[in-house]
């Protein structure tokens, strides 16, 4: 589904990604962990070309992602859920969900609304369809954002710390939605530090540090015998 080859990304003089190679299979649930500033966001933002790689290639479905085709690729293959939700504040929840299907994918409005209502039902927010995002709690906004990413029906969803901006009591409601999602044949790439979630859904976990993938393995591997010293130190901190 996703292939990253020799990916490097610099911001000015700062080398944020140093030669990343990564393959994600179709339907795989990949969790990315690592300390703040290690390049996790930059990596997944290079996958859908929100960031332009300095060098190296990203393929989705065996197609090279370029500056030119990035909109087409996003429209057809990938969607994203952000730490700060990034719902469109001038639109109702329902409008947020139907904008891309109607304007980009040319789905008839009625059909898009029906689909949107189904997904809202799934994230438990059907009654909020006509609210504006600002009237929802953080957890609700993030569930709407996940529903929005589902409405466009791409096979790959990128999550960038979807629960990090939430009050603790709202984390679980969002994780529950993501756990529900994981039962489907959707490829999920999640940057998250929720190790319980990782253990439950991840096929594979990678640990990033300082622009490199330092260790990878099953969630069990990370819980039981992480090898790299940096990994151990990091896990020691987040697992208490």
């Amino acid at each position, binding site marked *: 589904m996703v292939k990253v080859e020799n990916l490097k990304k610099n911001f000015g003089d700062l080398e944020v990604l140093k030669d990343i190679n990564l393959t994600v299979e179709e339907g795989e649930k990949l969790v990315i962990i690592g300390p703040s500033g290690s390049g996790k966001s930059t990596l997944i933002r290079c996958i859908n070309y*929100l960031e332009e790689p300095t060098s190296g290639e990203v393929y989705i479905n065996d197609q090279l992602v370029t500056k030119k085709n*990035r909109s087409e690729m996003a429209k*057809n293959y990938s969607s994203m859920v*952000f730490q700060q939700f990034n719902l*469109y504040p001038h639109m109702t929840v329902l409008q947020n969900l139907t904008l891309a299907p109607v304007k980009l994918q040319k789905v008839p409005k009625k059909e898009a609304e029906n689909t949107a209502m189904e997904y809202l039902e799934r994230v438990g927010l059907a009654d909020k369809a006509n609210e504006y995002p*600002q009237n929802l709690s953080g957890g609700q906004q993030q569930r709407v954002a996940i529903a929005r990413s589902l409405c466009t029906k791409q096979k790959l969803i990128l999550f960038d710390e979807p629960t*990090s901006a939430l009050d603790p009591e709202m984390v679980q409601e969002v994780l529950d939605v993501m756990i529900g999602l994981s039962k489907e044949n959707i490829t999920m790439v999640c940057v998250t530090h929720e190790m319980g979630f990782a253990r439950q859904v991840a096929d594979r976990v990678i640990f990033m540090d300082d622009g490199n993938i330092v260790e990878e393995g099953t969630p069990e591997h990370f819980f039981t015998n992480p090898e790299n010293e940096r990994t151990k130190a990091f896990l020691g901190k987040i697992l208490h």
Partner: protein
Amino acid sequence: MIKDLFDVKRWEAFLKVLPTEYIPGFIMTLKVALAGLLLALVLGVIFGILSTMKIKICQFLSRAYVEFFQNTPLVVQVFFYYNCLPFVIGGRVPKFWLGVIGVGIYHGAYIAEVIRTGIEAVPKGQFDAAYSQGFGYLQTMWYIILPQTMKMILPPLTNQALNLVKNTSVLAMVAGMDLMYHADSWGGDRNFFVQAYLPCALLYFAICFPLARLARYLEIRSKQIPSAKKAKGVA
């Protein structure tokens, strides 16, 4: 002065020319202002968007336009069009178009800056969300960014509209057949200054004041359109 103000004969003379001079001038001013505003908005949106694109040549074009027209007097610009455009188009420029082009291009430069500031105030996450869904740059602007700038840009935009109406009076200097031209040519010839300029001012006021009220109303309404909060700390 005071005596002139209460000179009944002069006011009677004014009333006679009201339908023949003032009303046509008023209508001309109104038409020029409306069409000029439309042109200014179109130019403002185009150059405002160009200036936010990460393409050097677009930014340069936008900068050049804004700086040139903001930093030269409107009067000079209009005189320039008046005298030079005939060579380009091979004929006299209709006064209506002279006015539209004059205030349209001039205020377009200010509106471009208003739009740019508005776009830059929208949090970057809104662009990310739109791109991640597959929207292109212009689609992102149209569906997602520009609607969110409304709240912020309406007051300065209204200010521009008001100034634009007033600035159409520069047409008088090139015999533009607008309100100010008629007022001046009638009253100036006879030294009926009070009767010439006071009603003239009131007629401008009659356009500008309702516009200001409308703007106030829109401003209050636009406060009800929610806008994205700036992200606090993004890891």
